[in-house]
């Protein structure tokens, strides 16, 4: 009786091999674009990196060979993401605290959690459309139309679901014994949250929030008609109320220019954007892996 032994040529074993190789092919196809993309950006963009890139204004597209630098866009991205974080983090952490610490699983909290998931699925360009209708076209911000402030608000809508979700989930992981202990020695609810539960969930919340910020930094669609773009240095606080450039919009605008010099600048900006986003991602992944190993309960 051969049937107890592995039969190389039986149809089931051949079929298994075929499917195994098919899934390997899937993996190769899935991974190839990433490898191509990252190496191409690193080579093509890295070659454009010069000290002047970080200090100069971009020159308006034309056929002059020198495209200038990306200083205003770099600073603009920093400012716009800071504004977005300053709105989304307090609101999101506060909302997350309510969901995780106060709500008792009633219909309100279920509705909010559902809303968070729905808001996370709203296309990013709709956030831009919304802020355009609410702020840009009404000139509600002291008569200014397109502004860095409006861009930051549009981005904050995209960050908000991430922040609430990570706060909610981070706080839920904190063991209840800590809360009981704190309440048991007579601490009030807000002291317990601020002094005990939030600090012990700090690292997981911070990781999620930083990843959310990194994602927002690369978003373009909400900015193209809220913050628009600017070629000029950001000089002071007042510039918040005017058009503001950003790396993402710079890449979009200059990729579509017919001039080679502007295209090169887009590659350089992509290099900086991708390098910072990937390093934030890899760093937080390593941090999360380390925390998991040394987790105490």
């Amino acid at each position, binding site marked *: 009786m051969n049937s107890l032994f592995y039969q190389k040529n039986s149809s089931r074993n051949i079929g298994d091999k075929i499917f195994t190789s098919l899934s390997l092919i899937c993996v190769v196809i899935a991974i190839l674009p*990433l490898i191509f993309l990252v190496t191409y950006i690193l080579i093509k963009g890295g070659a454009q990196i010069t000290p002047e890139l970080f200090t100069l204004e971009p020159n308006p597209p034309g056929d002059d060979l020198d495209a200038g630098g990306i200083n205003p866009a770099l600073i603009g991205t920093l400012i716009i993401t800071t504004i977005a974080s300053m709105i989304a983090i307090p609101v999101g952490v506060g*909302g997350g605290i309510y969901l995780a610490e106060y709500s008792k699983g009633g219909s309100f909290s279920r509705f909010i959690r559902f809303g968070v998931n*729905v808001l996370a699925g709203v296309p990013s360009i709709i956030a831009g459309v919304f802020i355009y209708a609410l702020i840009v076209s009404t000139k509600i911000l002291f008569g200014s139309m397109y502004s860095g402030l409006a861009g930051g608000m549009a981005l904050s809508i995209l960050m908000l679901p991430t922040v609430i979700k990570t706060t909610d989930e981070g706080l839920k992981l904190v063991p209840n014994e800590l809360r009981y202990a704190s309440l048991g020695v007579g601490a009030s609810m807000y002291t317990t949250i601020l002094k005990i539960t939030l600090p012990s969930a700090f690292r997981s919340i911070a990781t999620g929030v930083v990843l959310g910020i990194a994602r927002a930094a690369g978003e373009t*669609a909400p900015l193209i008609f809220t913050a628009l773009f600017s070629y000029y240095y950001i000089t002071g606080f007042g510039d918040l109320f005017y058009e503001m450039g950003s790396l993402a919009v710079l890449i979009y605008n200059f990729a579509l220019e017919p001039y080679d010099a502007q295209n090169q600048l887009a590659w350089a900006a992509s290099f900086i954007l991708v390098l910072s986003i990937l390093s934030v991602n890899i760093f937080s992944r390593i941090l999360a892996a380390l925390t998991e190993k040394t987790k105490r309960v």
Partner: protein
Amino acid sequence: MEEKLALFKNRKRFGIEKNIDIIFKNTALVLSSFVAIILLGIVLVVFFQSFESFSRYGLKFLVTSEWNPVKDEYGAFTAIYGTLITSFLSLLITIPLGVGTAIFITEDFVPKVFREIIGSFVELLAAIPSVVLGLWAIFVMEPFFRAFFVFLHNFFGWVPLFSTEPTGRNSLLAILILVVMLLPIVTSIARDSLNQVPKKLRNASYGIGASRWKTIFSVILPAALSGIMAGVLLALGRAMGETMAVTMIIGNSNAFSWSLLSPGYTISSMLANQFGEADGSQVSSLFYAAFVLMILSLVVNIFAQWLVKKFSLKY
């Protein structure tokens, strides 16, 4: 002893501390309801802004493809068709690739370290901004695929989908870049749901003599199906709303064509292109298109959440 008890009795919480507690709770409550306010605000604002266009063109807006600001004629059929065709076709390519990858990294074909590296590689792909993918698509992908598109047209030109001469940017490129963007979503959700299938199901299947792939197809995949479906729907929502990479590579033409090799339009690329310099009834029509996009993605998202809740694994 008596003294201590007296101390205990007087240890009441101060009024001010109580008030802070109440204020803190209510602030958190208000902040959490911001989500609902923003969501409602988005729906209402986009709806009311599109009202003028809605009352003028009605549902005809959805089926005509005239877009002429000079004559004040607006119809978004080309863009709606483009949104649907690009997202569905890209999903059709992504599902087998993503699920195949997910199976590979949940089975033990290679040591765990490699599988984890592959998994985090795919997830890193999701972190790359779509505008960078668009840049890459313009300068690397388009030249790379040009010869292939000419081949497609020459040999399959009789199929309506490939009936036009390829000239640079087109809908098929947009579909391909969408595949790159959707792969990480489908893969990571499919992987999570495959991982959640309990080991005893697999062991039972092996025990009655099923081969590995028989087990995968008849036991593991059906058990993980609802999770995978939810991931696919989330990816569909993302594909419909995706703006930058698609806008940069699709060619942005409002002339309707069945062919994937001709320039096309999606709702989001129409918004990205025209919103900045639109005025008058064009703005209202753009809001109408945005409203259509929003409803499409809301329906898909809510359906995905319902699916997760209804069919989530309970082992």
